């Protein structure tokens, strides 16, 4: 047994991708934790903002929604959607968006709208919200996913948010000025995208899994040749995450058995 949970290593793995000074477009859940833990550990000048308009809140309590009143306190500016969503694409800033989705394809395109079709709907998800905006306009995107075959698919039922489109140069050819997914952080490992083909490959796997298990849970062929074991959470990282970021474990959920 490890002394950390999948949620914890996910939050920390994503947080490590944040650079000091980044402007972070956070959702709730794990993305909130990743942003906050990065700020507390190695990126103190990173700024968290919410699509609802809260810019750089103090976050004394964890918001459970991007419209939580907890995103409106201690902020530099309280504004609204127009202001916050404009910031996503601002060329002065390295804006990094954390997104989740129901489905992802090998180029990091996302579905958070539905299964089936408008004519024959099978399942409905909430829809883009600001996800498609972030995927279109931000400097970079970090995707959180549950690693399951039905979520890592050959073809999205609905294409909500643009990743690397069909790979290669297609994103630029379409008219996007920047952006694209940087990494996919799952409960099994961290995936990245090849610099030329923009196809997903396995970058790192957690100690409690293996490249083979990840391949089995991925619904399209995936390059394992560059896979390496993921760096373990340090004691200091876990302490910050548990004691400062989510002490009530509202998002992290139960502690690992070992620690309990």
């Amino acid at each position, binding site marked *: 047994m490890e002394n950390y949970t999948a949620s914890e290593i996910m939050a920390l793995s994503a947080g490590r991708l944040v650079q000091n000074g980044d402007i972070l477009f956070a959702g*709730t859940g794990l993305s909130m934790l990743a942003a906050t833990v990065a700020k507390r550990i190695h990126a103190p000048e990173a700024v968290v903002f919410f*699509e*609802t*308009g*809260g810019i750089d809140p103090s976050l*004394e*309590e964890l918001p*459970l*929604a*991007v*419209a*939580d*009143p*907890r*995103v*409106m*306190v201690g902020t530099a500016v*309280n*504004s*609204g*959607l*127009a202001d916050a*969503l*404009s910031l*996503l*694409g601002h060329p002065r800033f390295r804006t990094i968006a954390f997104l989740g989705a129901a489905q992802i394809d090998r180029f990091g395109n996302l579905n958070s*709208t*539905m299964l089936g079709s*408008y004519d024959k*709907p*099978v*399942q*409905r*998800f*909430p*829809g*883009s*919200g*600001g*996800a*498609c*905006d972030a995927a*279109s*306009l931000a400097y970079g995107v970090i995707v959180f996913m549950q690693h399951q075959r039905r979520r890592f698919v050959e073809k999205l039922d*609905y*294409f*909500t*948010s*643009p990743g690397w*489109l069909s790979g290669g140069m297609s994103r630029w*050819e*379409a*008219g*996007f*000025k920047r952006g694209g997914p940087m990494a996919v952080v799952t409960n099994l490992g961290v995936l990245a995208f090849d610099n030329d083909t923009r196809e997903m490959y396995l970058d790192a796997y957690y100690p409690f899994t293996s490249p083979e298990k990840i391949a089995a849970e991925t619904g399209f062929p995936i390059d394992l040749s560059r896979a390496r074991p993921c760096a373990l959470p340090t004691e200091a990282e876990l302490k910050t995450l548990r004691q400062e970021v989510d002490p009530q474990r*509202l998002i992290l959920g139960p502690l690992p058995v070992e620690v309990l």
Partner: protein
Amino acid sequence: MTDKIMTAGEAVDKFVENGDQIALGGFTVNRNPMHIAREIIRQRRKDLYLAVHSQGQAMELLIGAGCVRRVELAYGGVARFAPTGYRFKKAFLEKRIEVEDYTNYQMTLRFMAGAMGLPFVATRSGLCSDIVRLSGFSPESRGHGKVPAQKLKVIDDPLEPQGGQVVILPPLNPDVALMHVQYAGDDGTCRINGLTFADIEQAKAARKVIVSCEQIVPKEFIRREPDQNCLAPFMVDAIVPAPFGAHPTACHAFYDYDPMHLNMFKKLAPDDDQFQAYLEQWVYPFESQEDYLAAVGIGNLLKIRANPAWGYAPGLDRR
């Protein structure tokens, strides 16, 4: 003192008609115009056409109660209490509503274009996505009533030959905007505390505006700090006094969202009969907000009451 001050019953009777396109203020769990939404259900409005970005508990009730025929939205959910809105999902899957998907930025820009009188607005957000390629509204509905002739249009950048493609979006000018604010002057001037979401754009874009508010204050008071105000009186058609008028969603500086109520709703909402029972218990009986609040109970209201240092209820049990 303006004669626009009235009850929700009067406001809905006067300004909301069957088939109207309605913009709902607030965002998921915050500042939803719940008191007005409940009144719309009580007055059994039909075939409403919602235009929203990220809704929210008000949309859940209105769709669940069968008031809605058509929705343009970016997001349908109540955050952690319903990652996808139960009644929204069910109505979509059972094809009892037609849904057109946009993004939050697109919807905000469309409200802004409507508010500013711009003929359209352009963005690159959504290029190549199904949001741009597909439409959830039936072809027969196109061009009728408020349904735009086209969902949107993708064109080459008219200014920059090398600029690639851009998405051209039609403005929104809803028949009615509903919003809940903290303060209204007795002249009708409005003030929002905390984030404004897209409420101001929505109100300015709409033909009629119904505002419910926590408190009505004298004109002389609200105009002492006009930098903080967001809507001039002539933009507003009805001011509805409604303490806790966004409950069970939050209202910054007044109260938090109500996790007890939202968790209870979460349990009942997926089932048709149980949802009906919710309406029978929490919506139909209460013409007055005071009676509704008595049912919520003073104990619960005190739990969610905001502490002025934070504007929310610190330490509230939100599980």
